[in-house]
Protein backbone atom coordinates (compact mmCIF):
# COMPACT_ATOMS: atom_id res chain seq x y z
CA UNK A 1 0.00 0.00 0.00
CA UNK A 2 1.14 3.49 -0.65
CA UNK A 3 0.48 6.32 1.67
CA UNK A 4 0.25 10.01 1.28
CA UNK A 5 1.96 12.40 3.59
CA UNK A 6 -0.53 14.84 4.96
CA UNK A 7 1.86 17.67 4.24
CA UNK A 8 1.37 17.23 0.54
CA UNK A 9 -0.01 20.55 -0.60
CA UNK A 10 -0.32 22.09 -3.98
CA UNK A 11 -0.78 25.81 -4.32
CA UNK A 12 -4.22 26.42 -5.67
CA UNK A 13 -3.89 28.90 -8.41
CA UNK A 14 -7.13 27.85 -10.02
CA UNK A 15 -10.45 27.73 -8.33
CA UNK A 16 -12.34 24.48 -8.03
CA UNK A 17 -15.56 26.20 -7.17
CA UNK A 18 -15.81 28.27 -10.31
CA UNK A 19 -17.53 25.39 -12.07
CA UNK A 20 -21.11 25.99 -11.32
CA UNK A 21 -23.88 23.60 -10.50
CA UNK A 22 -25.74 24.32 -13.72
CA UNK A 23 -23.42 21.95 -15.56
CA UNK A 24 -24.18 19.09 -13.19
CA UNK A 25 -26.58 16.93 -15.20
CA UNK A 26 -24.59 17.18 -18.41
CA UNK A 27 -21.34 16.21 -16.76
CA UNK A 28 -22.44 12.99 -15.09
CA UNK A 29 -22.12 10.75 -18.13
CA UNK A 30 -18.65 11.84 -19.25
CA UNK A 31 -17.48 11.90 -15.65
CA UNK A 32 -18.43 8.29 -15.10
CA UNK A 33 -16.88 7.29 -18.39
CA UNK A 34 -13.61 8.79 -17.20
CA UNK A 35 -13.87 7.00 -13.90
CA UNK A 36 -15.03 3.65 -15.31
CA UNK A 37 -11.65 1.99 -16.10
CA UNK A 38 -10.27 2.74 -12.66
CA UNK A 39 -13.57 1.86 -11.01
CA UNK A 40 -13.55 -1.56 -12.66
CA UNK A 41 -10.09 -2.54 -11.44
CA UNK A 42 -10.84 -0.96 -8.07
CA UNK A 43 -13.95 -3.06 -7.67
CA UNK A 44 -12.32 -6.17 -9.08
CA UNK A 45 -9.08 -6.14 -7.13
CA UNK A 46 -9.76 -4.12 -3.99
CA UNK A 47 -13.44 -4.29 -3.07
CA UNK A 48 -14.05 -7.74 -4.53
CA UNK A 49 -11.21 -9.46 -2.65
CA UNK A 50 -12.18 -7.67 0.57
CA UNK A 51 -15.71 -9.05 0.28
CA UNK A 52 -14.39 -12.48 -0.70
CA UNK A 53 -12.17 -12.46 2.37
CA UNK A 54 -15.12 -11.63 4.63
CA UNK A 55 -17.25 -14.39 3.13
CA UNK A 56 -14.51 -17.04 3.02
CA UNK A 57 -13.71 -16.37 6.67
CA UNK A 58 -16.95 -18.06 7.70
CA UNK A 59 -16.47 -21.05 5.38
CA UNK A 60 -14.06 -23.98 5.30
CA UNK A 61 -12.72 -22.75 1.97
CA UNK A 62 -9.85 -24.83 0.61
CA UNK A 63 -7.05 -23.80 -1.71
CA UNK A 64 -7.34 -26.95 -3.77
CA UNK A 65 -11.13 -27.13 -4.05
CA UNK A 66 -13.36 -24.77 -5.96
CA UNK A 67 -16.16 -22.91 -4.24
CA UNK A 68 -16.39 -21.82 -0.63
CA UNK A 69 -16.71 -25.28 0.93
CA UNK A 70 -18.82 -26.06 3.97
CA UNK A 71 -20.16 -23.34 6.27
CA UNK A 72 -18.00 -22.81 9.34
CA UNK A 73 -19.86 -20.06 11.15
CA UNK A 74 -17.45 -18.26 13.45
CA UNK A 75 -15.38 -21.41 13.82
CA UNK A 76 -12.37 -20.00 11.98
CA UNK A 77 -12.37 -16.92 14.19
CA UNK A 78 -12.74 -19.00 17.34
CA UNK A 79 -9.88 -21.17 16.18
CA UNK A 80 -7.59 -18.22 15.46
CA UNK A 81 -8.37 -16.44 18.71
CA UNK A 82 -7.56 -19.55 20.72
CA UNK A 83 -4.47 -20.63 18.80
CA UNK A 84 -1.21 -19.88 20.60
CA UNK A 85 0.66 -19.69 17.28
CA UNK A 86 -1.72 -17.01 15.97
CA UNK A 87 -1.09 -14.91 19.06
CA UNK A 88 2.63 -15.52 18.93
CA UNK A 89 2.64 -14.39 15.29
CA UNK A 90 0.81 -11.23 16.32
CA UNK A 91 3.25 -10.70 19.18
CA UNK A 92 6.24 -11.14 16.84
CA UNK A 93 4.71 -8.50 14.62
CA UNK A 94 4.60 -6.12 17.57
CA UNK A 95 8.10 -7.18 18.56
CA UNK A 96 9.35 -6.34 15.08
CA UNK A 97 7.69 -2.92 15.33
CA UNK A 98 9.33 -2.29 18.71
CA UNK A 99 12.75 -3.32 17.39
CA UNK A 100 12.66 -1.27 14.20
CA UNK A 101 10.76 1.92 15.00
CA UNK A 102 13.18 3.59 17.45
CA UNK A 103 16.32 3.13 15.33
CA UNK A 104 14.46 4.06 12.16
CA UNK A 105 13.22 7.29 13.69
CA UNK A 106 16.36 8.27 15.59
CA UNK A 107 18.89 7.28 12.93
CA UNK A 108 16.75 8.72 10.14
CA UNK A 109 16.62 12.00 12.03
CA UNK A 110 20.36 12.02 12.79
CA UNK A 111 21.26 11.20 9.20
CA UNK A 112 19.00 13.93 7.87
CA UNK A 113 20.21 16.61 10.28
CA UNK A 114 23.86 15.81 9.58
CA UNK A 115 23.44 15.43 5.83
CA UNK A 116 21.51 18.69 5.70
CA UNK A 117 24.58 20.47 7.08
CA UNK A 118 26.93 19.10 4.46
CA UNK A 119 27.86 21.71 1.90
CA UNK A 120 29.15 19.55 -0.86
CA UNK A 121 28.52 15.93 -1.68
CA UNK A 122 25.01 15.57 -0.36
CA UNK A 123 24.45 13.29 -3.32
CA UNK A 124 26.89 10.83 -1.75
CA UNK A 125 24.93 10.52 1.48
CA UNK A 126 21.65 10.28 -0.37
CA UNK A 127 23.22 7.44 -2.32
CA UNK A 128 24.46 5.70 0.82
CA UNK A 129 21.35 6.11 2.96
CA UNK A 130 18.53 6.23 0.45
CA UNK A 131 19.33 3.83 -2.36
CA UNK A 132 18.85 0.60 -0.32
CA UNK A 133 15.21 1.66 0.11
CA UNK A 134 14.40 1.27 -3.59
CA UNK A 135 16.12 -2.11 -3.97
CA UNK A 136 14.21 -5.41 -4.00
CA UNK A 137 13.79 -7.15 -0.65
CA UNK A 138 15.15 -10.33 -2.22
CA UNK A 139 18.52 -8.67 -2.82
CA UNK A 140 18.56 -7.22 0.69
CA UNK A 141 17.77 -10.61 2.21
CA UNK A 142 20.51 -12.39 0.25
CA UNK A 143 23.09 -9.78 1.23
CA UNK A 144 22.17 -9.81 4.93
CA UNK A 145 21.73 -13.55 5.27
CA UNK A 146 25.26 -13.86 3.93
CA UNK A 147 26.58 -11.33 6.45
CA UNK A 148 24.88 -13.32 9.23
CA UNK A 149 26.22 -16.72 8.07
CA UNK A 150 27.20 -18.65 11.24
CA UNK A 151 30.91 -19.40 11.68
CA UNK A 152 32.14 -17.83 8.44
CA UNK A 153 30.05 -14.70 7.93
CA UNK A 154 31.19 -11.09 8.13
CA UNK A 155 29.42 -10.46 11.44
CA UNK A 156 30.94 -13.60 12.92
CA UNK A 157 34.38 -12.37 11.88
CA UNK A 158 33.76 -8.90 13.24
CA UNK A 159 32.62 -10.29 16.60
CA UNK A 160 35.66 -12.56 16.85
CA UNK A 161 37.92 -9.65 15.95
CA UNK A 162 36.40 -7.59 18.76
CA UNK A 163 36.82 -10.49 21.16
CA UNK A 164 33.08 -11.16 21.42
CA UNK A 165 31.39 -14.54 21.22
CA UNK A 166 30.03 -14.87 17.69
CA UNK A 167 26.25 -15.10 17.47
CA UNK A 168 24.58 -17.27 14.81
CA UNK A 169 22.02 -14.47 14.53
CA UNK A 170 19.39 -15.98 12.23
CA UNK A 171 19.78 -19.50 13.69
CA UNK A 172 19.19 -18.42 17.28
CA UNK A 173 15.56 -17.91 18.33
CA UNK A 174 16.66 -15.19 20.75
CA UNK A 175 18.44 -13.19 18.04
CA UNK A 176 16.68 -13.96 14.77
CA UNK A 177 14.16 -11.14 15.03
CA UNK A 178 16.92 -8.68 15.91
CA UNK A 179 18.77 -9.82 12.78
CA UNK A 180 15.74 -9.25 10.59
CA UNK A 181 15.21 -5.88 12.28
CA UNK A 182 18.81 -4.83 11.57
CA UNK A 183 18.46 -5.67 7.90
CA UNK A 184 15.15 -3.81 7.82
CA UNK A 185 16.60 -0.68 9.39
CA UNK A 186 19.39 -0.72 6.82
CA UNK A 187 16.90 -1.26 4.02
CA UNK A 188 14.16 1.23 4.84
CA UNK A 189 15.89 4.06 6.67
CA UNK A 190 16.11 5.95 3.39
CA UNK A 191 12.41 6.67 3.52
CA UNK A 192 12.55 8.40 6.90
CA UNK A 193 15.82 10.06 5.95
CA UNK A 194 14.20 11.66 2.92
CA UNK A 195 11.10 12.71 4.82
CA UNK A 196 13.20 14.38 7.51
CA UNK A 197 15.50 15.96 4.95
CA UNK A 198 12.53 17.46 3.14
CA UNK A 199 11.07 18.76 6.40
CA UNK A 200 14.41 20.23 7.49
CA UNK A 201 14.65 22.31 4.38
CA UNK A 202 11.34 23.91 5.17
CA UNK A 203 12.73 25.36 8.40
CA UNK A 204 13.61 29.02 7.79
CA UNK A 205 17.32 29.56 8.30
CA UNK A 206 16.56 32.86 10.02
CA UNK A 207 15.48 30.88 13.06
CA UNK A 208 18.92 29.38 13.43
CA UNK A 209 20.63 32.66 12.72
CA UNK A 210 18.59 34.41 15.39
CA UNK A 211 19.32 31.61 17.85
CA UNK A 212 23.04 31.76 17.06
CA UNK A 213 23.05 35.49 17.64
CA UNK A 214 21.41 34.84 21.01
CA UNK A 215 24.29 32.51 21.82
CA UNK A 216 22.53 29.15 21.46
CA UNK A 217 24.89 26.20 21.01
CA UNK A 218 24.26 23.84 18.09
CA UNK A 219 22.83 21.33 20.54
CA UNK A 220 20.41 23.91 21.86
CA UNK A 221 19.45 24.82 18.32
CA UNK A 222 18.63 21.23 17.55
CA UNK A 223 16.86 20.74 20.86
CA UNK A 224 14.73 23.88 20.71
CA UNK A 225 14.29 24.54 17.01
CA UNK A 226 14.81 21.41 14.89
CA UNK A 227 13.17 18.76 17.05
CA UNK A 228 9.99 20.74 17.83
CA UNK A 229 9.57 21.86 14.22
CA UNK A 230 9.99 18.29 12.99
CA UNK A 231 7.37 17.04 15.43
CA UNK A 232 4.79 16.47 12.72
CA UNK A 233 7.22 14.59 10.56
CA UNK A 234 8.17 12.41 13.52
CA UNK A 235 4.54 11.57 14.24
CA UNK A 236 4.08 10.72 10.58
CA UNK A 237 7.20 8.60 10.43
CA UNK A 238 6.26 6.67 13.57
CA UNK A 239 2.72 5.98 12.39
CA UNK A 240 3.79 4.96 8.89
CA UNK A 241 6.40 2.71 10.47
CA UNK A 242 3.83 1.02 12.69
CA UNK A 243 1.46 0.44 9.78
CA UNK A 244 4.28 -0.87 7.57
CA UNK A 245 5.52 -3.15 10.37
CA UNK A 246 2.13 -4.80 10.74
CA UNK A 247 2.41 -5.81 7.10
CA UNK A 248 5.94 -7.14 7.27
CA UNK A 249 6.35 -10.23 5.12
CA UNK A 250 9.28 -10.09 2.70
CA UNK A 251 12.22 -10.00 5.12
CA UNK A 252 10.79 -12.73 7.34
CA UNK A 253 9.83 -14.98 4.46
CA UNK A 254 13.23 -14.55 2.82
CA UNK A 255 15.56 -14.56 5.81
CA UNK A 256 14.04 -16.94 8.36
CA UNK A 257 10.74 -18.32 6.97
CA UNK A 258 9.36 -17.63 10.44
CA UNK A 259 12.02 -19.70 12.19
CA UNK A 260 14.00 -20.94 13.97
CA UNK A 261 10.95 -22.78 15.25
CA UNK A 262 8.26 -20.16 15.13
CA UNK A 263 10.36 -17.47 16.74
CA UNK A 264 9.97 -14.97 13.89
CA UNK A 265 6.62 -16.04 12.48
CA UNK A 266 4.60 -12.84 11.90
CA UNK A 267 1.00 -12.13 10.96
CA UNK A 268 1.42 -12.26 7.18
CA UNK A 269 3.73 -15.28 7.09
CA UNK A 270 1.22 -17.04 9.36
CA UNK A 271 -1.63 -16.11 7.01
CA UNK A 272 0.30 -17.11 3.90
CA UNK A 273 1.26 -20.46 5.45
CA UNK A 274 -2.30 -21.17 6.52
CA UNK A 275 -3.61 -20.41 3.04
CA UNK A 276 -0.88 -21.68 0.75
CA UNK A 277 0.84 -24.42 2.75
CA UNK A 278 -2.00 -25.79 4.86
CA UNK A 279 -4.39 -25.04 1.95
CA UNK A 280 -6.86 -23.46 4.41
CA UNK A 281 -8.11 -20.34 2.65
CA UNK A 282 -11.08 -20.00 5.01
CA UNK A 283 -9.00 -20.03 8.19
CA UNK A 284 -6.43 -17.71 6.58
CA UNK A 285 -9.24 -15.32 5.63
CA UNK A 286 -10.37 -15.15 9.24
CA UNK A 287 -6.83 -14.33 10.33
CA UNK A 288 -6.63 -11.74 7.51
CA UNK A 289 -9.84 -10.08 8.68
CA UNK A 290 -8.45 -9.82 12.21
CA UNK A 291 -5.23 -8.26 10.93
CA UNK A 292 -7.21 -6.02 8.60
CA UNK A 293 -9.19 -4.67 11.55
CA UNK A 294 -6.02 -3.91 13.52
CA UNK A 295 -4.50 -2.07 10.56
CA UNK A 296 -7.67 -0.07 9.92
CA UNK A 297 -7.82 0.91 13.59
CA UNK A 298 -4.26 2.20 13.50
CA UNK A 299 -4.89 3.97 10.19
CA UNK A 300 -7.91 5.63 11.80
CA UNK A 301 -5.80 6.72 14.76
CA UNK A 302 -3.35 8.19 12.28
CA UNK A 303 -6.13 10.16 10.63
CA UNK A 304 -7.27 11.49 14.00
CA UNK A 305 -3.77 12.54 14.99
CA UNK A 306 -3.15 14.17 11.63
CA UNK A 307 -6.39 16.06 11.88
CA UNK A 308 -5.64 17.20 15.41
CA UNK A 309 -2.24 18.44 14.26
CA UNK A 310 -3.75 20.29 11.33
CA UNK A 311 -6.30 21.88 13.59
CA UNK A 312 -3.52 23.08 15.87
CA UNK A 313 -1.40 24.36 13.00
Amino acid sequence: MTTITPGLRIPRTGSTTSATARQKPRQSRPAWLFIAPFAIVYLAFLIGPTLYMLVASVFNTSLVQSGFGSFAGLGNYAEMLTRPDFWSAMWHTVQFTLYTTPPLVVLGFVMAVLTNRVGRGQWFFRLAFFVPFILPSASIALIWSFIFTPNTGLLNELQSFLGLTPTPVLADPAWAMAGVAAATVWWTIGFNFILYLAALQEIPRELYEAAAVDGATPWQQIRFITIPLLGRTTTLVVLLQIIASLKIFDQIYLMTSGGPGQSTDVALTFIANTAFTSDRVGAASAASVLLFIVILLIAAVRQLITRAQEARA
Partner: protein
Amino acid sequence: MATIQTARSRRSITSAAAPASNTALNGKGARGFRAAAAVVLALLAVLWLLPTLWAIKTSLSSNATASLGAPAILSDTQLTGHSYTALLGSGDLWNWYLSSAITSALTVILTVAFASMAAYPLSRMQFRGRKLVFLLVVAGIMVPTQVLVVPVFRELAGLGLLNTYWSVILPQVPAVVAVFIFKQFFDGIPRELEEAARVDGASYWRIYWSVIMPLSRPVVSAVGILTFVTVWNNLILPLFTLSNPKLMTIPVGLATVQGSYGQRLADIQASAILGALPLVIIYFFLQRRIVEGVAGSGLKG
Protein backbone atom coordinates in the same frame (compact mmCIF):
# COMPACT_ATOMS: atom_id res chain seq x y z
CA MET B 1 7.51 19.62 2.95
CA ALA B 2 8.45 18.90 -0.58
CA THR B 3 5.60 18.40 -2.93
CA ILE B 4 4.86 16.29 -5.91
CA GLN B 5 4.85 19.44 -7.92
CA THR B 6 8.57 19.54 -7.62
CA ALA B 7 9.27 21.05 -10.98
CA ARG B 8 7.92 24.31 -9.69
CA SER B 9 8.99 24.30 -6.08
CA ARG B 10 11.79 26.71 -5.52
CA ARG B 11 13.72 24.83 -2.93
CA SER B 12 13.71 21.10 -3.40
CA ILE B 13 15.77 18.64 -1.47
CA THR B 14 17.91 17.70 -4.37
CA SER B 15 18.61 21.20 -5.60
CA ALA B 16 21.49 23.12 -4.14
CA ALA B 17 19.92 24.09 -0.88
CA ALA B 18 23.21 23.51 0.82
CA PRO B 19 24.44 27.09 1.24
CA ALA B 20 21.32 27.88 3.22
CA SER B 21 21.75 24.99 5.59
CA ASN B 22 25.44 25.61 5.87
CA THR B 23 24.90 28.79 7.78
CA ALA B 24 22.63 27.02 10.19
CA LEU B 25 23.84 25.66 13.47
CA ASN B 26 26.42 28.31 14.09
CA GLY B 27 27.05 29.86 17.43
CA LYS B 28 28.84 28.72 20.55
CA GLY B 29 30.59 25.38 20.30
CA ALA B 30 29.83 25.17 16.61
CA ARG B 31 33.30 24.05 15.63
CA GLY B 32 33.41 21.08 18.00
CA PHE B 33 29.91 20.16 17.02
CA ARG B 34 30.77 20.30 13.36
CA ALA B 35 33.73 17.98 13.84
CA ALA B 36 31.69 15.50 15.84
CA ALA B 37 28.92 15.64 13.27
CA ALA B 38 31.32 14.95 10.43
CA VAL B 39 32.72 11.91 12.23
CA VAL B 40 29.28 10.50 13.01
CA LEU B 41 28.07 11.08 9.46
CA ALA B 42 31.15 9.43 7.99
CA LEU B 43 30.75 6.43 10.28
CA LEU B 44 27.10 6.04 9.35
CA ALA B 45 27.91 6.29 5.66
CA VAL B 46 30.58 3.60 5.97
CA LEU B 47 28.18 1.41 7.92
CA TRP B 48 25.51 1.86 5.27
CA LEU B 49 27.78 1.20 2.33
CA LEU B 50 29.50 -1.78 3.90
CA PRO B 51 26.85 -4.48 3.22
CA THR B 52 26.66 -3.60 -0.47
CA LEU B 53 30.41 -3.38 -0.87
CA TRP B 54 30.76 -6.70 0.91
CA ALA B 55 28.26 -8.31 -1.47
CA ILE B 56 30.11 -6.85 -4.46
CA LYS B 57 33.48 -8.03 -3.15
CA THR B 58 32.11 -11.53 -2.52
CA SER B 59 30.49 -11.67 -5.93
CA LEU B 60 33.87 -10.96 -7.52
CA SER B 61 35.49 -13.93 -5.78
CA SER B 62 35.25 -17.53 -6.87
CA ASN B 63 32.59 -19.73 -5.27
CA ALA B 64 35.32 -21.76 -3.61
CA THR B 65 36.85 -18.69 -2.00
CA ALA B 66 33.47 -17.36 -0.91
CA SER B 67 32.62 -20.61 0.86
CA LEU B 68 35.76 -20.29 3.01
CA GLY B 69 34.30 -17.29 4.77
CA ALA B 70 35.01 -13.67 5.50
CA PRO B 71 38.83 -13.68 5.93
CA ALA B 72 39.33 -15.54 2.65
CA ILE B 73 37.04 -13.17 0.77
CA LEU B 74 38.73 -10.16 2.32
CA SER B 75 42.25 -11.25 1.40
CA ASP B 76 41.28 -12.47 -2.06
CA THR B 77 43.02 -10.29 -4.60
CA GLN B 78 42.12 -12.29 -7.68
CA LEU B 79 38.90 -10.68 -8.80
CA THR B 80 36.84 -12.67 -11.25
CA GLY B 81 33.62 -11.90 -13.05
CA HIS B 82 32.88 -15.59 -13.28
CA SER B 83 29.69 -15.44 -11.24
CA TYR B 84 28.32 -12.67 -13.43
CA THR B 85 29.08 -14.42 -16.70
CA ALA B 86 27.61 -17.65 -15.33
CA LEU B 87 24.37 -15.96 -14.23
CA LEU B 88 23.96 -13.86 -17.34
CA GLY B 89 24.85 -16.87 -19.47
CA SER B 90 21.99 -18.97 -18.12
CA GLY B 91 18.54 -18.09 -19.36
CA ASP B 92 16.78 -17.75 -16.01
CA LEU B 93 17.96 -14.29 -15.08
CA TRP B 94 17.04 -12.83 -18.47
CA ASN B 95 13.56 -14.33 -18.22
CA TRP B 96 13.18 -12.76 -14.79
CA TYR B 97 14.37 -9.36 -16.02
CA LEU B 98 11.89 -9.66 -18.86
CA SER B 99 9.01 -10.52 -16.51
CA SER B 100 9.88 -7.69 -14.17
CA ALA B 101 10.23 -5.21 -17.03
CA ILE B 102 6.96 -6.19 -18.70
CA THR B 103 4.88 -6.32 -15.53
CA SER B 104 6.33 -3.06 -14.20
CA ALA B 105 5.97 -1.19 -17.50
CA LEU B 106 2.42 -2.34 -18.18
CA THR B 107 1.36 -1.57 -14.63
CA VAL B 108 2.85 1.92 -14.96
CA ILE B 109 0.99 2.59 -18.19
CA LEU B 110 -2.34 1.33 -16.89
CA THR B 111 -1.99 3.02 -13.52
CA VAL B 112 -1.07 6.39 -14.99
CA ALA B 113 -3.85 6.19 -17.56
CA PHE B 114 -6.62 4.94 -15.27
CA ALA B 115 -5.70 7.03 -12.25
CA SER B 116 -5.35 10.28 -14.19
CA MET B 117 -8.62 9.63 -16.02
CA ALA B 118 -10.40 9.01 -12.72
CA ALA B 119 -8.81 12.07 -11.14
CA TYR B 120 -9.85 14.44 -13.92
CA PRO B 121 -13.61 14.48 -13.26
CA LEU B 122 -12.94 14.48 -9.51
CA SER B 123 -11.00 17.67 -9.98
CA ARG B 124 -13.03 19.35 -12.68
CA MET B 125 -16.56 18.07 -13.00
CA GLN B 126 -19.73 18.14 -10.96
CA PHE B 127 -21.59 14.86 -11.11
CA ARG B 128 -23.82 12.63 -9.09
CA GLY B 129 -21.83 10.33 -6.81
CA ARG B 130 -18.76 12.55 -6.74
CA LYS B 131 -18.64 12.58 -2.96
CA LEU B 132 -19.01 8.80 -2.83
CA VAL B 133 -16.21 8.29 -5.33
CA PHE B 134 -13.95 10.60 -3.39
CA LEU B 135 -14.81 8.82 -0.16
CA LEU B 136 -13.99 5.46 -1.74
CA VAL B 137 -10.67 6.82 -2.93
CA VAL B 138 -9.75 8.05 0.53
CA ALA B 139 -10.96 4.78 2.11
CA GLY B 140 -8.98 2.79 -0.43
CA ILE B 141 -5.77 4.41 0.72
CA MET B 142 -6.15 2.68 4.06
CA VAL B 143 -6.73 -0.82 2.65
CA PRO B 144 -3.66 -2.97 3.28
CA THR B 145 -3.34 -4.72 -0.06
CA GLN B 146 -0.84 -7.31 1.21
CA VAL B 147 -3.50 -8.66 3.51
CA LEU B 148 -5.68 -9.31 0.45
CA VAL B 149 -3.18 -11.66 -1.17
CA VAL B 150 -5.22 -14.77 -0.35
CA PRO B 151 -8.54 -13.63 -1.87
CA VAL B 152 -6.73 -12.01 -4.80
CA PHE B 153 -5.06 -15.34 -5.49
CA ARG B 154 -8.43 -17.11 -5.47
CA GLU B 155 -9.90 -14.52 -7.80
CA LEU B 156 -7.00 -14.80 -10.23
CA ALA B 157 -7.33 -18.58 -10.13
CA GLY B 158 -11.00 -18.23 -10.95
CA LEU B 159 -10.22 -15.92 -13.85
CA GLY B 160 -7.57 -18.31 -15.17
CA LEU B 161 -4.90 -15.63 -14.84
CA LEU B 162 -2.44 -17.42 -12.55
CA ASN B 163 0.97 -17.80 -14.14
CA THR B 164 0.38 -14.86 -16.44
CA TYR B 165 1.85 -11.37 -16.18
CA TRP B 166 -1.69 -10.07 -15.69
CA SER B 167 -1.79 -11.75 -12.29
CA VAL B 168 0.91 -9.31 -11.21
CA ILE B 169 -0.29 -6.30 -13.21
CA LEU B 170 -4.03 -6.09 -12.66
CA PRO B 171 -4.13 -6.26 -8.84
CA GLN B 172 -1.59 -3.44 -8.66
CA VAL B 173 -3.35 -1.07 -11.04
CA PRO B 174 -5.91 0.24 -8.53
CA ALA B 175 -3.29 2.27 -6.67
CA VAL B 176 -5.69 4.64 -5.02
CA VAL B 177 -2.94 6.95 -3.94
CA ALA B 178 -2.21 7.73 -7.60
CA VAL B 179 -5.73 9.08 -8.08
CA PHE B 180 -5.22 11.25 -5.06
CA ILE B 181 -1.90 12.60 -6.32
CA PHE B 182 -3.31 13.33 -9.77
CA LYS B 183 -6.36 15.08 -8.33
CA GLN B 184 -4.21 17.29 -6.14
CA PHE B 185 -2.10 18.22 -9.11
CA PHE B 186 -5.05 18.88 -11.42
CA ASP B 187 -6.58 21.10 -8.74
CA GLY B 188 -3.54 23.31 -9.07
CA ILE B 189 -3.75 23.75 -12.84
CA PRO B 190 -5.36 27.13 -13.72
CA ARG B 191 -8.79 26.67 -15.21
CA GLU B 192 -8.24 29.51 -17.63
CA LEU B 193 -6.09 27.17 -19.71
CA GLU B 194 -9.10 25.02 -20.42
CA GLU B 195 -11.51 27.86 -21.05
CA ALA B 196 -10.20 28.57 -24.53
CA ALA B 197 -10.48 24.94 -25.54
CA ARG B 198 -13.96 24.71 -24.11
CA VAL B 199 -15.07 27.79 -26.03
CA ASP B 200 -13.84 26.06 -29.18
CA GLY B 201 -16.17 23.20 -28.32
CA ALA B 202 -13.56 20.67 -27.34
CA SER B 203 -14.83 17.54 -25.62
CA TYR B 204 -13.83 16.66 -22.07
CA TRP B 205 -11.71 13.89 -23.46
CA ARG B 206 -9.91 16.31 -25.74
CA ILE B 207 -9.28 18.75 -22.90
CA TYR B 208 -7.97 15.95 -20.70
CA TRP B 209 -5.70 14.63 -23.43
CA SER B 210 -4.43 17.83 -25.07
CA VAL B 211 -4.55 20.35 -22.25
CA ILE B 212 -4.36 18.65 -18.87
CA MET B 213 -2.05 15.73 -19.52
CA PRO B 214 0.64 17.70 -21.34
CA LEU B 215 0.77 20.03 -18.33
CA SER B 216 1.02 17.08 -15.98
CA ARG B 217 4.38 15.66 -17.01
CA PRO B 218 5.96 16.08 -13.56
CA VAL B 219 3.20 14.20 -11.81
CA VAL B 220 3.02 11.55 -14.53
CA SER B 221 6.70 10.85 -14.08
CA ALA B 222 6.45 10.87 -10.28
CA VAL B 223 3.53 8.43 -10.23
CA GLY B 224 5.13 6.40 -13.01
CA ILE B 225 8.44 6.02 -11.23
CA LEU B 226 6.92 5.21 -7.87
CA THR B 227 4.66 2.62 -9.47
CA PHE B 228 7.57 1.16 -11.39
CA VAL B 229 9.71 0.73 -8.28
CA THR B 230 6.81 -0.67 -6.24
CA VAL B 231 5.85 -3.23 -8.86
CA TRP B 232 9.44 -4.20 -9.63
CA ASN B 233 10.07 -4.89 -5.94
CA ASN B 234 6.76 -6.54 -5.07
CA LEU B 235 7.39 -9.98 -3.66
CA ILE B 236 4.23 -11.28 -1.99
CA LEU B 237 1.91 -11.10 -5.00
CA PRO B 238 4.08 -12.68 -7.73
CA LEU B 239 5.49 -15.12 -5.17
CA PHE B 240 2.14 -16.86 -5.06
CA THR B 241 0.78 -16.13 -8.53
CA LEU B 242 3.85 -16.94 -10.64
CA SER B 243 5.10 -20.46 -10.06
CA ASN B 244 6.62 -21.12 -13.46
CA PRO B 245 10.35 -20.33 -13.18
CA LYS B 246 10.36 -18.83 -16.67
CA LEU B 247 7.69 -16.30 -15.80
CA MET B 248 8.99 -15.26 -12.39
CA THR B 249 9.93 -11.69 -11.65
CA ILE B 250 13.37 -10.84 -10.29
CA PRO B 251 12.44 -10.88 -6.57
CA VAL B 252 10.54 -14.17 -6.87
CA GLY B 253 13.25 -15.82 -8.92
CA LEU B 254 15.94 -14.76 -6.46
CA ALA B 255 13.82 -15.92 -3.56
CA THR B 256 12.76 -19.34 -4.79
CA VAL B 257 15.03 -20.91 -7.35
CA GLN B 258 18.11 -22.39 -5.78
CA GLY B 259 21.35 -23.34 -7.38
CA SER B 260 21.19 -27.06 -7.77
CA TYR B 261 24.57 -27.93 -6.38
CA GLY B 262 27.03 -26.89 -3.75
CA GLN B 263 27.35 -23.66 -1.87
CA ARG B 264 27.61 -21.14 -4.68
CA LEU B 265 27.92 -18.16 -2.40
CA ALA B 266 29.63 -15.86 -4.87
CA ASP B 267 26.92 -16.58 -7.43
CA ILE B 268 24.24 -15.84 -4.85
CA GLN B 269 25.76 -12.46 -4.02
CA ALA B 270 26.16 -11.71 -7.71
CA SER B 271 22.48 -12.51 -8.23
CA ALA B 272 21.58 -10.09 -5.42
CA ILE B 273 23.63 -7.38 -7.13
CA LEU B 274 22.21 -8.12 -10.57
CA GLY B 275 18.68 -8.12 -9.15
CA ALA B 276 19.23 -4.68 -7.66
CA LEU B 277 21.19 -3.22 -10.58
CA PRO B 278 18.30 -2.01 -12.78
CA LEU B 279 16.94 0.08 -9.93
CA VAL B 280 20.34 1.54 -9.16
CA ILE B 281 20.66 2.53 -12.81
CA ILE B 282 17.21 4.07 -12.75
CA TYR B 283 18.19 5.93 -9.60
CA PHE B 284 21.21 7.44 -11.29
CA PHE B 285 19.12 8.73 -14.16
CA LEU B 286 16.07 9.83 -12.23
CA GLN B 287 17.30 10.51 -8.73
CA ARG B 288 15.57 13.87 -8.36
CA ARG B 289 12.22 12.47 -9.37
CA ILE B 290 12.58 9.41 -7.19
CA VAL B 291 13.71 11.25 -4.09
CA GLU B 292 11.05 13.90 -4.47
CA GLY B 293 8.39 11.37 -5.32
CA VAL B 294 9.19 9.44 -2.16
CA ALA B 295 9.23 12.61 -0.08
CA GLY B 296 5.87 13.65 -1.52
CA SER B 297 4.13 10.34 -1.28
CA GLY B 298 5.47 7.45 0.70
CA LEU B 299 6.24 4.24 -1.10
CA LYS B 300 6.16 2.67 2.27
CA GLY B 301 4.65 -0.73 2.91
